[in-house]
């Protein structure tokens, strides 16, 4: 017999604006005892402001309850393909919050910020070693901004070569992450999509056909978004260079190859990294991240401002490269994230980073074999850091979509994998365990997915209505987009 659930409150219906009461507050402000300066003329001032009014205890409870309605890596396995949700070491948070680092003002003279600057310099040197690309700017705030930097650097280089007018195209594989084409467009280029061959690598023939004097660059993700090695990429690099174009590496998947092969050695001219993935910095529900852009000596003059430079006087400074594309942010990037990434690099060392890529790849392949046969595997070969299955059989035979499978996985206690990406795999289930998952967790995830495949046969409707045990049931995303409600409003509530 199932009891009434007296406590199934509509939590989401009550925002902070609907809580508390007029006249409550969570902190007091010191009063001013000195001489009063008259305020500016009233037409410059606001005469009203609507903000929540809650006591401190109420506000703390509200966010504590919100946190309980969120799932993080610390809650369990979070196998989002391409997103590399690995364990975030707590010591890195502790380090970034040391007052000496946290209180540093971005405009302070170099003498007063050497602790930060030297640390960033060492991070930069480490990343250069790891990527084989000698010059780096740590400024980009995330992968997409690193991409923009890289493409704009290519723009400047072509301009200096007097070829910018003619080279207006950037080639992007159809398996690429959306930020690649979006970035190319933001930088004013037109995008040509390259098809993926049957083996999951670039279709060499098309590349050769497309390569001509109108091509500015080719953006390739290595390993690619199928979790596969881009076979022959080093030869493609030569072709591209012969055609006078540049080769860009989307390095978001560096974690698969750290310490084993380097973008520079493969012939890449420029690459961005996602330190908030490969280097374990917390993703915070959507940032902050850090997307350093790394390049060859040829492209170094174009790096975004600032870059780090160590002077004869032994001081590390932030300087502007002579032909810099300019700044990407008012200051120096997400330094707090970069400090965490440095701590991660130092905690692992080379052997550790090789152990990371090794175990990450082993975990993905272990999952691949455990699930083999239960879900379609369009590109059926050994993978690197992630494996992309397809729910097309379930869709065809039981009318169960990958969307349903993902939602049901929540009931089994897991965060779902990335779904419907890459676009070239229909009903894609893109799973990346990362090296920080123990084998037991990977086995449990496989069991859950296998159980769901069986549930799909027995009770498809139950899957259509999943999740059943989440803090809230399946949400109506269509309605949200059709009649957007995007902020609190008195009337609405």
């Amino acid at each position, binding site marked *: 017999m199932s009891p009434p659930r007296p406590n199934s409150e509509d939590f989401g219906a009550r925002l902070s604006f609907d809580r508390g009461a007029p006249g409550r507050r969570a902190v007091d402000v010191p009063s001013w005892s000195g001489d009063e300066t008259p305020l500016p003329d009233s037409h*410059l*001032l606001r005469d009203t402001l609507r903000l929540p009014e809650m006591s401190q205890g109420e506000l703390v409870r509200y966010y504590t309850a919100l946190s309980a309605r969120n799932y993080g890596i610390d809650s369990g396995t979070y196998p989002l393909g391409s997103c590399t949700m690995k364990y975030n070491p707590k010591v890195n948070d502790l380090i970034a919050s040391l007052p*000496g680092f946290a209180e540093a003002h971005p405009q302070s003279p170099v003498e007063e910020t050497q602790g930060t600057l030297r640390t960033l310099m060492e991070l930069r040197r480490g990343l250069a070693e790891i990527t084989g690309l000698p010059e780096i700017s740590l400024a980009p705030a995330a992968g997409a901004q690193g991409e923009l930097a890289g493409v704009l650097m290519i723009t400047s280089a072509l301009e200096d070569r007097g070829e910018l007018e003619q080279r207006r195209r950037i080639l992007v594989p159809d398996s690429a992450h959306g930020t690649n084409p979006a970035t190319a467009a933001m930088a004013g280029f037109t995008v040509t999509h390259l098809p993926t061959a049957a083996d999951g690598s670039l279709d060499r023939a098309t590349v050769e056909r497309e390569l001509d004097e109108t091509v500015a660059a080719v953006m390739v993700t290595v390993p690619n978004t199928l979790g596969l090695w881009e076979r022959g990429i080093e030869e493609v690099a030569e072709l591209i260079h012969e055609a006078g174009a540049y080769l860009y590496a989307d390095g978001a998947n560096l974690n698969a190859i750290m310490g084993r092969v380097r973008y520079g050695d493969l012939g890449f001219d420029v690459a961005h990294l996602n330190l908030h993935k490969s280097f374990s910095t917390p993703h915070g*529900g959507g940032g902050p991240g850090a997307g350093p852009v790394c390049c060859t000596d040829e492209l170094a003059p174009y790096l975004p401002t600032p870059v780090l430079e160590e002077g004869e006087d032994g001081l590390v400074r932030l300087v502007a490269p002579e032909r810099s594309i300019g700044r990407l942010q008012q200051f120096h990037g997400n330094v707090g994230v970069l400090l965490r990434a440095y701590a991660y690099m130092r905690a692992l060392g080379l052997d550790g980073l090789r152990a990371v890529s090794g175990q990450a790849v082993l975990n993905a392949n*272990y999952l691949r074999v455990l699930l083999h046969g239960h879900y379609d595997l369009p590109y059926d070969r050994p993978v690197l850091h992630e494996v992309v299955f397809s729910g097309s059989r379930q869709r065809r035979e039981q009318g169960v979509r990958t969307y349903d499978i993902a939602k049901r996985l929540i009931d089994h206690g897991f965060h779902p994998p990335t779904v419907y990406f890459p676009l070239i795999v229909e009903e894609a289930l893109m799973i990346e365990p990362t090296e920080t998952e123990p084998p037991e967790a990977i086995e449990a995830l496989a069991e859950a997915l296998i159980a769901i495949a069986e549930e799909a046969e027995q009770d498809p409707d139950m899957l259509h209505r999943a999740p059943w045990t989440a803090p809230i049931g399946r949400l109506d995303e269509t309605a949200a987009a059709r009649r957007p409600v995007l902020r609190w409003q008195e009337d609405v509530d």
Partner: protein
Amino acid sequence: MTSSSFAGSSPGGSPHPYIPATEADQARMLERVGVADLDALFADLPADLRDPAIDLPPALTEPELIALLTERAAANAAPSRPNFLGAGAYRRSIPAISSHLASRSEFVTAYTPYQPEISQGTLQSGFEFQSVVCELTGMDVANVGLYDVASATAEACLLAVRFTKRQALALLEPIHPGTADVVSTYARGAGLRVDSVTSADAVSDEHACLVVQQPDFLGTIADLEPLANVAHDNGALLVAVADPFALGLLKAPGDAGADIVTGEGRDLAGAPAFGGPSLGLFAAGLPYLRQMPGRIVGRTRELHAPEHGDGEPRTGYVLTLQTREQFIRRERATSNVSTAQALIALAFTVTMQALGPRGLRESAELCYQRAHDAARRIGVLPGYETPERGPWFQEFLVRGPVPAAELNARLAERGITAGLDVSARPEPEAREALLFAVTEATPDAHIDALLEALAAIGGES
């Protein structure tokens, strides 16, 4: 160690505390996968390029790591050192609960909320953030945040360009040079012309927008209404780059006619952190919604009523209007932004909710009073003046008995980090001047120390 004899644990342990799989685990998994060793998993990689020599410093254990970085942190100036720099980053009093709540690991270790049913914490607080930003700026809609104020302003300009189909931007000086620089960076890609103007009169029908900083780079409070009118008369949008803290006191840019408002939220989320993690605020009028960059949280309901409860579908939040975004729209997206600054936005929101309407107003007034009091005390020192360009909020210019650079150096000798040297700027008031910031969080003792030092320097010269 000599504990080989010791039977506390088995050999063949895992390679690192961050990597659980032990040698035994690995062997079991390798066998199941059907390969001999880890290297075999990388067979696809070009043999001649594999396992290159890589020179990294040795690995450190956690205690060694903490020791090293504690030393590094101590190699920065002590936080107790008086520092009067502002110019885009300001020390604020942040309620203790902001960092406490923003460090709840369910928030910290979550990804972008692609699965709303288990991401309501991130999503609902994102909706709170959008609501707070709309209230502060007086705009209709806001996104969940961009990288920082400068890149947000650049995105605002690109929006204006898409909307007006015009190819030029007008930036009203004095504006933060970092902001202007980033706008130019983004503009180059789009092939736009950037005009730096000293008066709104320079705005023409070629301009997609007029960008105005509030308060401006030299601390002066702008009267946005006339500027908005000029912009609108020329068919251009008004983009206001506003300090959200100052907006506790100043008129909401939306009420003054701004079409888009950007701002920097970092200082209300926590310490300056050498400039980042930062937080770009982005709010706009409803007409611009479908052109907005970045993630937007929307409110919706359950598709099915829950088993238990009153049978009504419950309210929840989702990422919405995603057809604007790169992962769907790809090269036709409104922006390439993906990961932004969600956790900083959460801390920013808690600070705003903790202060509430009256607290924010009082805090902004306190900042105003303290800054003006400090300026007044400096202004009466023999040999010093504080040239004004109009009403101002928390930053003021100081011209001393010695050239700006020298004044800066002499204060540094006395253990005080002075204001920013703006003597190279064109504005006459900036001639030989330093730009000082005093906020509600500047300790009295630091101000007293500054006055003493300034008086002493004045005496010497």
